C-alpha cells in the first residue's frame, strides 16, 4: 500500500464515525444535536424557581427525600447549621438549598435550590456510552440503572456538577441525581419538592408557560429581578429555570457556560473531518523524516555491499561496482543485488580466463 492510499484509508475511517445521534427516549425520538428543530420541547414540563420567594425552609429537601425514599440525611432537615457550608448534590441528596447572603445561617434572605437542571440537550446523555441517560419528551432526564457501566463520564461531563456516585457501594453502585419525579410526571403531577414548598417558590407547567411567567415577573417588578432567565439558553436551554434578585454568579450559577449545547462540542471531533485535515501535515512530516532515514539506510547498505565486494573480489571489481552504483542513485535493494551479482560473475569470468591462460 503506498503512502497516499494509506492516508486516504485513515481519512475514510475517520469519516465513518459521526457525532449526531439520539439522546431522546420515548416513542418519538429526535436527533440530539438538532433539538432546535423541535424548538426546545416547548410542551415539555418545566419548573421555575424564584430566589426572591424562597425562604430556605428546606421542606423541598425533605419532600424529595421522602418521595424518593432516600437515606436519612447526615444533618437534620431543621438544623440551620447546614447553611454554614456550600453543598453540592451527593448520593443521599438529589436536591438541596444553599444560602448565599452574609446573614447568620438560616435567617438570611438569599437562598437557591440545586438539583438536576434537566437540560434540553443533556451533557450526561450525550456523554454516556451506553445511553443510560436519556431525555424524555416530557422534559425529564432519566437514568437506566440496568445498563449503566459506572464509568462516571456523565459526572465529568455535566456542566452543573449534578450527578453523584455511590462510591461506598462495592457491587452495583449507581449514579444518582434528581429524576424530575419522573413517575409523577407520567400522571401530569408536579414534582414532590414543588408540591411541598410552603411559599410556592417554584411553579410547574410547560416550558413555554414557565418562560412567559418568568418574563412577566421580570417586567412587573424590574427592580426585584436581574433581567435574565437562567436556563432559557444556558447550555442549549434547560427545563428548570431560575429567577434571581442578584446577578446569578452570586447565587453560585455560572454565567460563562455559554448557550452551546454540550453535544456540539464533541460532534465535530466525532465527525472526524477536522482531525484528519489538521493532523495530515504533521503526520506527513513524521513520515517524511522516516522516509529520509530509509533512503540513508539504503545508501549505507549499498556502501556495505561495495566494501564487502572489495574485500571478496579484489579492489578492481569493487571499484567498478562502486562506479556503476553511483551512476544509478536510485537503486533499490533488488537492483543493488543484481548489480552485485553481475560484478561477481564478471570477476569470476575474469579469474577463469586468467587461469586458462
Amino acid at each position, binding site marked *: *500500500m503506498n*503512502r497516499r492510499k*494509506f492516508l486516504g*484509508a*485513515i481519512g475514510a*475511517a*475517520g469519516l465513518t*464515525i459521526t457525532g*449526531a*445521534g439520539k439522546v431522546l427516549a420515548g416513542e418519538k425520538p429526535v436527533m*440530539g444535536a438538532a433539538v432546535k428543530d423541535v424548538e426546545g420541547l416547548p410542551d415539555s414540563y418545566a419548573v421555575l424557581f424564584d430566589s426572591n420567594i424562597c425562604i430556605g425552609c428546606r421542606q423541598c429537601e425533605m419532600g424529595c427525600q421522602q418521595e424518593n425514599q432516600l437515606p436519612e440525611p447526615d444533618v437534620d432537615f431543621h438544623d440551620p447549621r447546614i447553611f454554614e457550608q456550600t453543598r453540592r*448534590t451527593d448520593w443521599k441528596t438529589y436536591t438541596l438549598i444553599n444560602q448565599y447572603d452574609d446573614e447568620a445561617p438560616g435567617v438570611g434572605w438569599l437562598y437557591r435550590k440545586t438539583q438536576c437542571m434537566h437540560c434540553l440537550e443533556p*451533557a450526561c*446523555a450525550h*456523554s*454516556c*456510552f*451506553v*445511553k443510560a441517560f436519556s431525555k424524555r419528551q416530557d422534559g425529564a432526564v432519566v437514568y437506566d440503572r440496568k*445498563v*449503566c*457501566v*459506572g*464509568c*462516571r*463520564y456523565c*459526572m*465529568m461531563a455535566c*456542566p452543573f456538577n449534578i450527578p453523584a*456516585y*455511590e*462510591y*461506598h*457501594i*462495592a*457491587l*452495583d453502585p449507581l449514579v444518582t441525581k434528581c429524576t424530575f419525579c419522573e413517575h409523577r410526571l407520567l400522571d401530569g403531577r408536579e414534582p414532590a419538592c414543588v408540591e411541598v414548598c410552603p411559599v410556592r417558590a417554584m411553579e410547574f407547567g410547560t416550558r413555554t408557560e414557565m418562560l412567559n411567567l418568568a418574563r412577566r415577573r421580570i417586567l412587573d417588578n424590574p427592580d426585584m429581578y436581574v433581567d435574565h432567565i437562567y436556563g432559557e439558553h444556558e447550555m442549549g436551554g434547560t427545563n428548570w429555570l431560575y429567577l434571581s434578585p442578584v446577578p446569578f454568579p452570586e447565587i453560585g450559577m*455560572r454565567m460563562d457556560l*455559554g448557550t452551546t449545547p*454540550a*453535544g456540539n*462540542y*464533541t460532534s465535530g*471531533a*466525532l465527525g*472526524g473531518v477536522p*482531525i484528519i485535515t*489538521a*493532523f495530515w501535515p*504533521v*503526520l506527513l*512530516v*513524521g*513520515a517524511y*523524516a*522516516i*522516509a529520509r*532515514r*530509509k533512503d540513508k*539506510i539504503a545508501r549505507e547498505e549499498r556502501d556495505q555491499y561495495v566494501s564487502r565486494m572489495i574485500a571478496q573480489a579484489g579492489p578492481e571489481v569493487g571499484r567498478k561496482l562502486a562506479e556503476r552504483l553511483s551512476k544509478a542513485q536510485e537503486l533499490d535493494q533488488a537492483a543493488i543485488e543484481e548489480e552485485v551479482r553481475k560484478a561477481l560473475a564478471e570477476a569470476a569470468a575474469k579469474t577463469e580466463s586468467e587461469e586458462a591462460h
Partner: protein
Amino acid sequence: MTNQHNEHPWEVKSPWITPFNVVAALIVLVGIYLTYLRFTGGLAAVTNLDDNYPWGIWISFDLLCGVALAAGGYTTAAACYVFGIKKYHAAVRPAVLTAFLGYALVVFALHYDVGQPWRLAYPIFVQQGTTSVLFEVGLCVFLYVTVLFLEFLPAPLERLGIKRVRNIMIKLTLVLTVFGVILSTMHQSSLGALYLILPSKMHPLWYSTHLPIYFFVSSMFAGLSMVIFESTLSHRWYHNRMDKSHLEGTPHVTFGFAKAAAWIMAGYFFIKFFGVVLNNNWAYLNTFYGMIFSIEMLGFVALPAFLYIKGVKTRNIKLIRWTAVLTVFGIIFNRFNVSLVAYNYHLPSEMKYFPALAEIGVTIFVITIGLIVFKFIATRTPIFYELPEYKGSH
C-alpha cells in the same frame, strides 16, 4: 554493551528466585489485598475519588498514559510494514507485544475503576451510545486489542510449531498494521476528545478544540520514545535472548525513531504554540497554571526534541536513551495536566483530588502484572530473536 550475541537465544533458562521475582511477588500480594478491598468496600475504600473528581489516576495514568505509551505498537509496525523500513523489523515484535499487553492492562485496570465491570462490553453489544466520545474510545480499544493480539500471535505459534496458522497470520500482517494505524488514530485522538464536552471545567491553556489532534500527535512520539526506552531496558535484561539481527537492528531503531520523534515533537510544539496564539491565551502564561504549561512545553517537548536531534547528530546513543525517558515523563506530565490539573482548575485547593496510597498501589500492581507477563512471554517465545526455520520470513 557488548556486541557478542548468543547463537541459541531460545535455549536460555532463567532462575526462579531473582530480585525481580521477589519484589514482583510482594507487589502482587499487596495488589490482591487491594483488589479484595476494592470489591468489598467499593471505590471509597481504596480511592480518594469524590463527586467532583469522578476520574482519578486510574484514568489519568492507567488509561490515558497507558494508551499513549502503548502507541509504540502502531508506530513501529507502520514504520516497518507500511513505510517499508525493514531495518526496524527487529523492533516490531517487542513493540507489538508491549502494545498488546499495554492495552490488555488498560482493559484490566478499567475493571477496577468502573462500577459494573461485568457490563464493560455493554456499550458494544447491548446499547450503543453513539453520541459519546467514550463509545468511540471503547469500540476502538476493543477492536485494537483484538488486532494486537492477532499481530502478536505468530510468536507463540512459531514456538508451538503451528506453522499453517502462523503463515496465515503473517500474510495478514499488512492489513492488520493498517487497521491498527486507523484504529489508533481514532482512539488516541478520542482520548483527548473526551475532554471536549466539558469546556467549563477545563483550564483554557489545556482546553482546545484541537485536543484530539494534540493527543494523537503526542501519542506518536510517546510511542517512538517508549520503544527506545524499552529497548534500553530489554538490552539490559534480555541481552542473552537477542539474536544477531535484533542486536544489529537496534541502533537503527534508536537513531531513526529519535529523529522521527524530534520532527513530530517540533510539529507538536508549534501546533500547541499556535493554539495559545489562536485562543489568545497569553495572559494565562503569567500565572501558576501558565508556569506548569510552560514547563510542560519547554522542558518536556522543546528540550527533548532538541536533545534527540543532538543525539542523532553526534551519534550519542546514551543521550537519546535518556531523552526517551524525559519524553515519556513529559507525556505522563501532559496527560496528568489535562486530566487532573486543568480539570476543575477553579475548585479551591482543599477540594482538589490527590490519589490515595491504595489507589497508587493498584496502579503499581497493574504495571507489575504487565512486567511479569511480558517476562513470561519474552522468555518463552521468539520476541527478541527469530527461530532458525522462520528466519527472514516475515
